[in-house]
């Protein structure tokens, strides 16, 4: 019998619709795999009963012929998506006990297509982090370990729980969100495909905001085809989100022709950063060769403002978060620290001191500072101007090429605890992912090989606005060429 937890999403779809197994069966198999994998700390909440109910409905849909591609597929949802009546705290203590009365648009889309929710995954608090060590619920462990190592590695962040769940075969696929690389970098660290679509492609309604002008929903999956299927279900215009774009959602899976002959692939010289490990440089060259062999034309391009992307991002995102997180004040929901004769201001201070973790506080402080009178022009306004220049870089580059190939991250996964005390080193993880985020452009990470230590490494493809179809097609070529089939050796739970 097929191992029900080791399939790609597309294989599971074919099996479900071919009657090889039921959604109830694969859902149950995943729920027991989740129970076995508590060491990873990938899930904050497992919604077993709800999952079985949804599976039963999905099986009915399959039976009556109304099934869609996602019908019956058990998936994990990043905690920051509001799911009605279910834990939705963006892994923060400040939302203590919060269960929304509404369902996010993206998850509603998935449920409407018959997908099954296994539970809510761990993440960096409010999606702020690159290692998933900033969660109120503790760090997530990467299922991958360096060869011969027994220490724990980070899964990347902020969608670390989602990445770990998919890599450890405890969820077929998972939703993530990407603000500056929070889908692509964990995908790279966990040997997965991670797609951040164009800003405005998915509705942000019901996603707990980090930085409104950057946040986007996207899938973490085991294959490019899986990403195409899940993206199509998640995407769409939503009148409830003024920044979502009214562009029809194409059939992404149908775009996976594998034919990229004549396609122009840009290689930005500014992404050859100092101190980049040789093996990443080498993998990048390998990727160029793969695409060349498939008939693509390689073009050298320049994105001259790349070096300003990281500082720009670390002004814009904290500025927005300092305002977005002001609503967590202990008045309406979530945590409230009470005491005798506390003034309103004291209540705010005590609640927010107790409710936010260090990284969140750091970014609120930075954001408050850069928006302050006297500093606004020098920081926030300048950052916005640079952001426009960065978007201009891409616009100019896409006059010369169709997609851009870069590494996803400057390193493989690092050991848990390695960078916690050095926020700046941590921020450098986003160096390759942040520019496209600032420009609002789509990007995808594809597993392309292993580091010398045996940890996954990803390559990133960047596309043009609403060019997800093309991006996915090129990614599928890279995926075939790389032939990345390695899986982490199971060290957690029983039979480890």
């Amino acid at each position, binding site marked *: 019998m097929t191992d029900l937890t080791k399939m790609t999403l597309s294989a599971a779809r074919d099996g479900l619709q071919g009657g090889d197994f039921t959604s109830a069966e694969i859902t149950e198999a995943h729920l027991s795999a989740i129970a076995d994998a508590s060491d990873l700390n990938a899930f904050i909440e497992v919604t077993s009963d709800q999952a079985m109910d949804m599976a039963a409905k999905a099986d009915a849909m399959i039976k009556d012929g109304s099934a869609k591609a996602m019908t019956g597929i058990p998936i994990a949802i990043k905690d920051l998506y509001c799911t009605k009546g279910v834990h939705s705290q963006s892994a923060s203590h400040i939302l203590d006990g919060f269960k929304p009365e509404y369902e996010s648009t993206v998850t509603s889309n998935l449920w409407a297509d018959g997908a099954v929710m296994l539970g809510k995954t761990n993440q960096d608090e409010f999606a702020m982090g690159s290692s998933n060590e900033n969660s109120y619920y503790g760090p997530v462990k990467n299922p991958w370990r360096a060869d011969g190592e027994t220490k724990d590695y980070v899964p990347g962040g902020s969608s670390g729980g989602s990445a770990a769940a998919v890599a450890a075969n405890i969820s077929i696929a998972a939703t993530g969100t990407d603000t500056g690389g929070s889908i692509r970098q964990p995908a790279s660290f966990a040997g997965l495909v991670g797609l951040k679509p164009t800003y405005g492609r998915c509705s942000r309604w019901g996603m707990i905001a980090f930085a409104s002008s950057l946040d986007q929903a996207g899938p973490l999956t085991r294959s490019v085809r899986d990403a195409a299927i899940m993206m199509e279900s998640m995407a769409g215009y939503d009148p409830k989100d003024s920044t979502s774009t009214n562009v029809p959602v194409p059939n992404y899976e149908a775009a996976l022709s594998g034919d990229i002959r004549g396609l122009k692939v840009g290689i930005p010289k500014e992404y050859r950063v100092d101190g980049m490990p040789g093996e990443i440089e080498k993998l990048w060259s390998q990727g160029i060769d793969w695409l060349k062999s498939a008939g693509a034309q390689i073009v050298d391009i320049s994105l001259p403002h790349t070096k300003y992307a990281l500082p720009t991002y670390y002004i814009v995102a904290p500025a927005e978060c300092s305002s977005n*997180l002001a609503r967590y004040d202990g008045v*309406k929901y979530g945590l409230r620290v009470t005491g005798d004769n506390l003034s309103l201001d004291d209540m705010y201070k005590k609640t927010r001191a107790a409710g936010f973790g260090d990284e969140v506080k750091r970014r609120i402080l930075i954001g408050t500072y850069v928006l302050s009178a006297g500093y606004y022009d020098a920081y926030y306004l300048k950052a916005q101007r640079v952001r426009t220049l960065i978007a201009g870089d891409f616009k100019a580059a896409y006059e010369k090429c169709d997609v851009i190939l870069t590494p996803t991250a400057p390193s493989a996964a690092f050991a848990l605890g390695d960078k916690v005390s050095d926020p700046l080193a941590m921020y450098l993880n986003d160096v390759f992912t942040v520019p496209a985020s600032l420009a609002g452009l789509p990007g995808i990470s594809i597993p392309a090989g292993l580091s010398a230590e045996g940890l996954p490494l990803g390559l990133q493809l960047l596309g043009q606005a609403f060019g997800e179809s093309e991006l996915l097609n090129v990614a599928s070529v890279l995926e075939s060429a790389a032939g990345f089939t390695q899986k982490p050796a199971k060290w957690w739970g029983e039979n480890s």
Partner: protein
Amino acid sequence: MSNLYQGATGDWEVVIGLEIHAQVISESKLFSGAATKFGSEPNTQVSFVCSAQPGMLPVINDECVRQAVRTGLAMGCQINLRSVFDRKNYFYADLPQGYQISQFKDPIVGEGVLTVDLEDGSTKDIGVERLHLEQDAGKSMHDQHPNMTYVDLNRSGVALMEIVSKPDMRNAEEAGAYFKKIRSLVRYAGTCDGNMDQGSMRADVNVSVRRPGEGLGIRTETKNVNSIRYMMQVIESETRRQVDVLEDGGTINQETRLFEVATGTTRTMRSKEEAHDYRYFPDPDLLPLEFSQEFVDELAKDMPELADAKKARFIKDLHINAYNAGVLVAEKESADYFEELLAATVDKSGKPVSELGTLVSNWVSGDLFGALKKLGLGISESPVSIAHAAELLSLQIDGTISGRIAKEVFENMLESGKSPEAIVEEKGLRQVSDTGEIEAMIDEILAANADKVEEYRGGKDKLYGFFVGQVMKNTGGKANPQVVNQLLRPKLDG
């Protein structure tokens, strides 16, 4: 009103600017579908958006945008085809998002000039700086529990227009006239109901003083003043206070102040040092607000007739004098009442409208307004219906009753609520126009007062009134004055 304030050490000039907050008339809030009904139970007009639930996003209410544009058009201001919503960040328990969505650098409506009428008959031009759209906050209730504050979010997210004047006003009267002008405009435009007692309109009052000819002094801002009378008190008390401070050698602190109704004065709310740094920045949840000139033109085409145009029409087409026309159009409700009554009177009396304008306008601005003022009622609360008023005027027009009797009938109508026809019948107030009856009465009176007739004929013209009075007295005021004149004069002149 004088433009200078006499201090102990000389004259001072007062400089006043107003920020008027006017609640937009719309079914739902500025960025959510929640309703806006006044007086609802606490927290019953609240959506996920206006209670700032996690992950909720604002979506602009197009009707509020149209209302702001209409208001801008009514004020004759520049309409900006592109404007931007910003976040004004501060913490307060009744501000659920921790920021207010407002417009900071790029408002929807730009500059304009309003001409206001002053009591001495002169006019003054007062500049409008801008109008922007913003959300209202909720309401903190400190009187519900001994040591807790309750929050009502019904108002949270309700659309407000903030109309900012230039510092062009120089005394309380001008500020009052400017406020009334704006209130009248928004009512005519149907964009704000102007109900100050319900908080639909309130003003932040900026006051500074300076020696004539000098640069602007340091200003104070008194927040949330919710009546015109209070606003004028704020200006007068702030002027006195600031002049006293300066004449004593002190300096004015730039600060926010609160008006205290009990004392009619203001007190410090927070100083400049305690002022918030609002950290304005463009709201990343909202795209810039953009619309076409065609959109504005469509709204302009459908604008209702405003006060100034109405006044001009009353004068030109209805031959109403400028004073009456001004009084009638000052409030939309009175202009509406007048126009409805005029139409009803045309129907009832069968006379052409051009002949009735003066009579009807005199009656509304004189008799009716006088009575309402005595009763302390507004025009919308008038105890006399349009139908009854038209009937009354028609009785006067067709000569059934005289003007004097009409006043008596009106008094009775106010008390009894009865129709004027019924009152005239009941009390036998029908005017006497029978020449034979009146002539016989005149003969009697002349015979009984032969001495006075002699005096009159001897040159004492003034006695004519005495004879008219006698006739009226004998008929209980019902004799038709025209008939009396026609008969009396030839008999006296013999």
